[in-house]
């Protein structure tokens, strides 16, 4: 049997919030599509940490299952997203999101 956590679980939530915010900054501030993808991964991982911490607090493993699904969706997202990136780079020779604004008119 494992009792209460030695580290208050709020700290894990705060850490997850900090990591998520850093990811948000990356998406909003960087112009390279690859780095934006990495920042999205950062945010997904922050959410995973939060899931696992809540799982620990409630003593149920459903949070772990959710992390499992988040990882599967992230893998699918990265595969398709990077393929789009490669296609864009092939056509436009750029990975800068400011240069790809055909829809803006």
């Amino acid at each position, binding site marked *: 049997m494992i009792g209460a956590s030695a580290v208050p679980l709020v700290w894990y939530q705060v850490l997850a919030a900090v990591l998520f915010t850093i990811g948000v900054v990356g998406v909003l501030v960087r112009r390279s599509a690859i780095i934006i993808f*990495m920042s999205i991964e950062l945010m997904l991982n922050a959410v995973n940490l939060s899931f696992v911490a809540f799982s620990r607090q409630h003593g149920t493993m459903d949070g772990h299952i959710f992390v499992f699904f988040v990882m599967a969706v992230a893998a699918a997202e990265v595969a398709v997203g990077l393929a789009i990136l*490669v296609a864009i780079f092939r056509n436009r020779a750029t990975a800068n999101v*400011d240069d790809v604004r055909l829809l803006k008119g």
Partner: protein
Amino acid sequence: MSLEPILFAMFGGTAIGCAVGVVFHRNPVHCALLLVGVLLSLSGLFVLLHAPFVAALQIIVYAGAIMVLFLFVVMLLNVKGESPLLTPGAAKGFGILFALIVFIELLGTVLPRSGDSSRLPDAVLPEGFGSPAAIGRILYTVWLFPFEITSILLLVAVVGAVVLAKRKFA
């Protein structure tokens, strides 16, 4: 004095430091390697939270498979460091302001309010919590349908990636 707070500070500090590096480093390859650092320290935190299976998955799937994909694309595209590094002008200020608002909002949700007694105490975990056997048992019973849907999602992603990466469209 248990070892847990020290390990938490170590892994948490590494995660935050590497995450800042991911966002502000110029070279995309370095960014990818720093992101691996974040993922590894998060897997350490998962072990601290008694989620050994998730920690192993984190290393194998994220640090192993997904990051290799990232590095492949970085090298395939041969993107030099962007210039300028950050989005120019007012958009940068607005971006950071918006992120700060998100952070404050998140903290407001996460931090316990004073005088709030509804917060649950930490649960007492049974033996084998977070082990592959225990996770497999609920994954293949309670969560069986979402699990099967995941396989379809991955199939769609594989087809989509192949179609998109083909040299000629139709």
